[in-house]
């Protein structure tokens, strides 16, 4: 069951990713992107990252993508259908390098998967935490203990980003 779900999510995620790259309209791309993010969230669930899956849907697919949509609308790009893919040379080169990269990744990862898993252990490193603290607690606990400083820094970063975005987007007086 889980495998079937995984393959469905995976197929949708990859397919939608391709859609992001090939669709002409930015809005379409955006929608494909949302699809990918949602499918990835599904995979997250299968990988026992429930909190992150929720986060992915809410923050990423929800908030950030809406931000993108706002910008697209703001700039009135929704109706832009002209081709913005680069020339043939660029496409061929792009395919060449990304193909090679993909090939290399698959070659590295696709082969001895079993060995990899046995090396890393049984795959239940977080099960105990999940059981004890629940989906949110498991991630919240390290976040507010060991990683509290980076966490606070992230807050500052977001604040800075907000201010920066405001400054940048403000019309020059």
């Amino acid at each position, binding site marked *: 069951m*889980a495998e079937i779900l*995984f393959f469905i999510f*995976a197929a949708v*995620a*990859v397919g939608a*990713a*391709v859609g*992001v*790259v090939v669709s002409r309209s930015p809005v379409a*791309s955006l929608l494909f*992107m949302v699809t990918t993010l949602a499918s*990835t969230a599904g*995979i*997250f669930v*299968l*990988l026992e*990252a429930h909190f*992150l899956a929720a*986060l*992915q849907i809410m*923050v*990423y697919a929800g*908030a*950030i993508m809406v931000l*993108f949509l706002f*910008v697209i609308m703001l*700039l009135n*790009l929704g109706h832009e259908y002209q081709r*913005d*893919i*680069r020339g043939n040379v660029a496409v061929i*080169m*792009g395919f060449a*390098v990304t193909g090679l*990269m*993909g090939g290399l*990744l698959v070659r590295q*990862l*696709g082969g001895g998967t079993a060995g*990899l*898993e046995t090396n*890393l*252990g049984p*795959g*239940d*490193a*977080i099960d105990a935490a999940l059981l004890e603290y629940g989906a949110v607690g*498991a*991630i919240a606990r*390290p*976040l507010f203990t060991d*990683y509290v400083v980076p966490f606070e820094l*992230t807050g500052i*970063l977001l604040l800075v*980003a907000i201010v*920066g*975005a405001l400054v940048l*987007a403000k*019309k*020059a007086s």
Partner: protein
Amino acid sequence: MLAESLVVAGMIFVVGTLGVIVRRNVIIMFLCIELQLNAVNLTFVAFSRYVGIEGQVFVFFVIAVAAAEAAVGLAIIISIFRHYETVDVSNFNLLKW
């Protein structure tokens, strides 16, 4: 499921890279970068099952940073658009010098 996840992540990453290379619309390029980030997140999550909860923590941070990045990046795009009236990056070549 680790290997499969990694392969999927790799594929999404490659597609994202391709998008960055071939597209000219700066917003779509931006989306493709998000795609790459997402692929990386996936690998983190996949590994976290075997290594520990820290992988997920890291993804949490990545999402936060991605949010910040999106905010600033989009602000920059708006400001550039105001100047050039376009989102085609082939017009943005001031860095050439």
